[in-house]
């Protein structure tokens, strides 16, 4: 089970007043399902995702995975957490441009100390709906294909949780729909947390929707009328 407790983040921009982007957020998550975090720009949803994904350091609070607190994490533990427990999908895909699609995915395996087997990579590409005859570079792909590659790169690590920060933000609605459909399929086996500002997508795909404003959770669909199938803790 994944849980966040009083997670807070304050930014100290140079020459400006401190900004409290996250104000003591606490949420419990299940092992599976697709959770949407909704909110307008600047509400702190991406900050929350980054903290949960171990990409940034909280100013206060903690997250727990199976009861183990992030406060007890060493730097190496945090690296391992990002390596083996979570996968991250970014809005801008963040693929390595000098490497082929296959190599981008293979690097994820190498970071886990595994061999980048071609068969495994091809299978993962197929799982996300991609198939290439030969090596392809990210700049040769469409936005949707790049995002699928990014999802494949995150999934090949077999993470327990997949975090997606505005995965459809740079895509058209049709492609975005395809991506979210893919993520929905993935959420059948693992927890998928998606940050989005699109309420329609959240309503259509989310098992649970958290609303955020000004750094705090203002609504939780678990406490309201169920949206689709409710996911029990």
């Amino acid at each position, binding site marked *: 089970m994944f849980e966040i407790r009083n997670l807070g983040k304050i930014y100290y921009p140079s020459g400006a007043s401190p900004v409290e982007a996250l104000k003591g957020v606490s949420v419990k998550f299940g092992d599976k399902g697709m959770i949407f975090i909704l909110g307008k720009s600047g509400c702190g949803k991406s900050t929350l995702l980054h903290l949960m994904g171990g990409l940034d350091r909280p100013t206060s609070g903690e997250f727990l995975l199976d009861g183990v607190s992030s406060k007890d994490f060493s730097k190496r*533990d945090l690296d391992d957490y990002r390596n083996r427990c979570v996968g991250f999908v970014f809005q801008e895909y963040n693929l390595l441009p000098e*490497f082929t699609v296959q190599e981008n995915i293979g690097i994820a395996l190498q970071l886990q100390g595994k061999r980048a087997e071609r068969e495994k990579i091809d299978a993962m590409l197929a799982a996300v709906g991609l198939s290439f005859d030969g090596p392809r570079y990210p700049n040769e792909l469409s936005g949707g294909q790049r995002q699928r590659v990014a999802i494949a790169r995150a999934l090949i690590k077999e993470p327990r949780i997949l975090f997606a920060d505005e995965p459809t933000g740079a895509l058209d609605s049709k492609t975005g729909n395809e991506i979210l459909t893919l993520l929905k399929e993935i959420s059948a086996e693992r927890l998928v947390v998606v940050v989005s500002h699109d309420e329609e997508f959240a309503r259509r795909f989310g098992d649970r929707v958290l609303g955020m404003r000004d750094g705090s959770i203002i609504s939780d669909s678990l406490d309201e009328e169920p949206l689709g199938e409710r996911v029990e803790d």
Partner: protein
Amino acid sequence: MMSHDDRKNDRKIGLAFRLLASKKRIVTTLVTIFISALACALFALAWSGWCYDYCDLATRGYLHYAASKTGSYAADEPYPYFSLDTAGEYPYLCLSPSGTISNSIVNRHRFSFEQMRAIEEDTQIPFVREMVNTEGVSYWGCYAGATLPNSLSTVPNADAVHDLLTAWRLTNGTAGSLELAGSEEDYSAMGFTLLAGRYPRSRYEVALSEAHYEAFAAQGYIDVSARFTTEIDDDFGTYNLKYDVARQPDVPVQPIGQYEDLLGKTLMGWSDELPHLRTFTIVGVVDTHCNVRRAQDDWENYPAGRILRAEETGIEVCRAFCPRLDEGRASRLFKLCDAYQKEALEAERLSGESIDYPLPLRGDFFDFSRPEWVYVDTSANVIYSCTLSVGALSAAVGFVALLLGGFRTERMVEDREKEFGILRSMGASDGTIFKILLADIAAMACAIFLVALAASLGMYYAWIRPWGYSAFMDAYELVYNGWTVLILFGGSAVLAMLAAVFPVCRLLRRSVMENIVGRREGKKKKKRK
């Protein structure tokens, strides 16, 4: 949650160079490599001799040369002898052709009494001390004339003395025999044997070699101490004898027919103590196995023909003028002396050739008018100064290289910071990131090393080596050896690593999102009370 075994699987990414290779910063990279290489080359050329043991370098170079020139001379001697001499503020390293190691003051190569004893025990070479005074000049026997001691001169009449004195002044003063100081055991160990009397025991006793005896036997003995006054030449610490016309002009000549005839007679000698000119009593005549003719031709340079002094004098002089020197170096120096002497003897024996002595001198590096001395240690001063200068220059260039390398690495890291952030978001540890950057550091170090190797070889063979030979008459061999290459290698690695330390640490201190986004999070300001 995470096992420690799993962490061991964090391996290097084999595609590091593809990640880091960039056409950007090529010029900066090349300039960094060349300046770093220049710094390493200068540093290595300056200090490889010191790492090689400066003393051995200086000694080896000169001794190798000098030994090749004095082999025949040394072959005449029954014992090994090396003299490290100074003259005033211009120290020199002089290879004396006989064999027993003597000690005097060499600038920066000064031996304490205890060290000399240790060297004796270590090398098993008899050790007698060569006398020096505050001027750095060996105690001169009070002699006048080019070849004969004044006390040994035949002075039949005042006019001849006056003429002789005039001639002496024109030749700028006195000449005479240098001195050895040691104990009876020391002299015996050198193979000396008493012909008459005993070895000197106190400061104002001397023993003479058979070369001196032969001179007295040929021309008689004159006690000039009561008949002459002296004028002291402070520039050189020498003095001129001045015939005092007020004194009795006729100086009787005493015949010398046997060794014992010299015992109890006196020589005038120079001392640091006042009055500088004093008499020394002859207490013994010693068979030093010297070549009499050669000694008399060159009183100054022929140790076997020297005046023998008591050990206490040498001890006091050494205690006064000998700061401590690294014992290991001192020991190696004298072992080297012994080794070269033996090589020279063997080379001479094999070649059968006779090599002239003394050595020629190059005028740039000495202030003495006498051409016999080779001021190798003066050149050592020059080399020492050059070493410091070039070393300082290398440090300055190295500092610039460090700044440039740091700038280049900082920019390279900035160019790739997003990629490093992406890798970290995928789980790359700090160690993995460092290993990727290590590839760049290693590549830079290799490039710097190769360029520095070429540059140092070029500088050495095109400039330093020819300069060294022309400056020091082949007597100095400035090295290019394994130490040089080792310093180049180490310097290249150190420069490359140091240039990368700060940028890498800054990269890893930032959070993953800071790497990806490029946002720099400010520091929390402390609240003022």
